[in-house]
């Protein structure tokens, strides 16, 4: 007989791994990517491929240079690349997309210690930096080539158009997916919801965060006199609430913490949308709440069962 192995309990582990979780997120993003490809054509897939490819390559190089364990196998870089792609307009110049990946993977993720250590969601931080640095490309005022053939209103997102009191898409179009100049992952609320339901079903995310976030925006915009249905369907809310605000590392761990986090995201989003200088507030809202997460975690620590406070 072989030598027996001895180790402390437990001697069995669940089949869920970091890699399986990340794979689930990739799967959940596929409907949104499919809608983008259907509406915008091959370039949507090209942008996604470039973002995923450069994210993985940058992570590989970073880990190599820092002489750390290789982590590209956990697929988190694939998730970041894909998420960033879906946060960009289809006409984005590829070099800008690659620069975004650099911000996400190198600056926000690896320089802070890699997976689990970043203070903000890498894709979200990259989007915010690109928005501030390349707002022209990001709001697609100068779309290279003709990717918006039919109803091309090369001005801004539906939200920006709403703000300008311009012509708007119908609610059903916004739900199912409509060509516009916003980020290519934001065009179909339905596709994002399908992905979200998959993640909840697979227990990858808790439904608390997206429900609270979207609910807050709905109620608050309603109270403030905006059209709440249009508000929750438009812009990056679905994408942000389902895929970015639920990022493990940068959102609170307890349910109570998640509620506070999502409420904060909702309130900031509405304030920026209705009163701020930018047409969209989701990215800034999540980024701000990311930064507050350690404080929220501290305030919402669990009380041990039967524990006495010394």
């Amino acid at each position: 007989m072989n030598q027996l192995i001895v180790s402390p309990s437990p001697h069995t582990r669940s089949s869920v791994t970091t890699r399986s979780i990340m794979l689930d997120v990739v799967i959940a993003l596929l409907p949104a990517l499919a809608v983008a490809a259907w509406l915008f054509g091959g370039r949507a897939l090209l942008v996604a491929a470039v973002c995923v490819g450069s994210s993985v390559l940058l992570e590989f190089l970073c880990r190599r240079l820092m002489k750390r364990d290789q982590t590209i196998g956990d697929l988190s870089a694939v998730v970041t690349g894909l998420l960033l792609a879906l946060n960009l307009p289809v006409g984005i110049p590829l070099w800008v997309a690659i620069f975004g990946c650099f911000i996400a993977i190198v600056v926000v993720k690896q320089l802070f210690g890699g997976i689990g250590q970043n203070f903000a969601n890498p894709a979200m931080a990259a989007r915010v930096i690109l928005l501030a640095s390349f707002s022209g490309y990001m709001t697609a005022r100068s779309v290279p080539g003709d990717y918006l053939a039919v109803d091309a209103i090369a001005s801004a997102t539906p939200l920006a158009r709403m703000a300008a009191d311009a012509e708007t898409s119908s609610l059903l179009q916004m739900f199912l997916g409509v060509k516009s100049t916003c980020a290519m992952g934001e065009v179909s609320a339905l596709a994002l919801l399908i992905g979200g339901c998959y993640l909840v079903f697979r227990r990858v995310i808790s439904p608390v965060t997206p429900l609270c976030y979207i609910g807050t925006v709905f109620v608050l915009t309603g109270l403030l006199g905006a059209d709440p249905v249009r508000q929750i369907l438009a812009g990056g809310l679905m994408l942000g609430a389902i895929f970015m605000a639920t990022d493990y590392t940068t959102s609170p761990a307890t349910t109570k913490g998640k509620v506070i986090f999502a409420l904060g995201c909702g309130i900031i989003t509405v304030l920026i949308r209705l009163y701020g200088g930018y047409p969209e507030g989701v990215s800034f809202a999540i980024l701000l709440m990311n930064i507050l997460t350690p404080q929220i975690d501290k305030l919402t620590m669990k009380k041990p069962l039967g524990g006495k406070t010394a």
Partner: protein
Amino acid sequence: MLKLGGVKLFHFKNSKDAATVELPLPSQVKIPLLQHMGAGCQPVVAVGERVLTGQLIGDSDAPMSVPVHSSVTGTVTAIEDYVAAGGRVEKQVVIQVDGEQEWFPSQPVEVHDQASLVAAARAAGLAGLGGAGFPTHIKLAYKDIDRVDALVINGAECEPYITSDYREMMEYPDDIIAGVELVQRCLGISRAYIGIEDNKPEAIQLLAGKLSGREDIRVESLPSLYPQGAEKVLIYNTTGRIIEEGEIPADKGVIVMNITTVANLWRYVQTGRPLTHKRVTVDGNFVKKPLNVRVPLGASISYLLEFAGVEMEKARKVLMGGPMMGMAVYQLDAPIIKNNNAILLLDEKEAEFAPTTACIRCGRCIGACPMNLMPAALERAYDQVDEETLKKLKVNLCINCGSCSYVCPAKRHLAQKNQLAKGLLRKK
């Protein structure tokens, strides 16, 4: 109402229909004199002496101790040191079996109040048979017994594979009920709860049927959520009471007993014969015929596995107990003791260590912890030797159920770190 954390496990109760079979007598038994939580016993027999089945062979003056009896008839050939679980060196009595199985003379025991019940539990050699091995008589001897109004019988058996308690319920339901009534009568406890996980519907039905219409003993069907059988979890889920830090269950009016222990207590009172055998489940995914075997205490694991016809060349890890809290044994000639309820075999693949990766702060460990602890935060505090934080986050309340390690997608050794952290705090 507060809902406690836990994890859904595969049950693998493959041996549930395997009725108990008797292990043929081995030629030799090695009976450890420490088979319980507390102090080990001193031998009361000498080398060369002939002992009978059920004869006292080890006892101790220490209050936290349980006497040990011979499981066989035979001759004492040696009294030697051995390394007990946890690394302590204790004594064991080696007996050459002569096959007579002649019982040490005994008679039914008169039990009518707390003092006589405590004496009986001690004389029966009973320690918690579910796995913890806590001396039964100490629980029953709680001095402020009038405060105790609830008896909780642990039939949860929440670990995968194990069906030792389940077979007790199916084969000796009347002993269980009589034992419960005995304890209730002697201690004046008005209400008893028999807690059973709902993955054992036949056992629930059998006991509930026998107890139908009775208010004093209730069968509670509990969700199959590990660790349902952990003492504090079981107390909360049956009585709604929370045992505070530093308290024992009796401080909150509850005494908890394992279901096989209570049946054995009744059998002792009926016959005067102490605990000499234990039912052990033998299973594992390559075990063709999972068994429940009645093993004389002190028989070796290897002898038991030989009897079970296990293909030993496939085993890479051998556990005493279940996959969540069982102990990995390092040698197969180790003896079966009172609190063993299973010998579980893991193959190459199951014994493999998954590589540990970085914590992704997913919070699964927090959701899984039945004690409401924050395992990932505790791990960080331990790694930083931050004793203040370890104390503040109550690492001492960890029951080492292993749920946090089980759910961790990064395969971090969270439960193990908690044990190390407790050790770190104890050293000071």
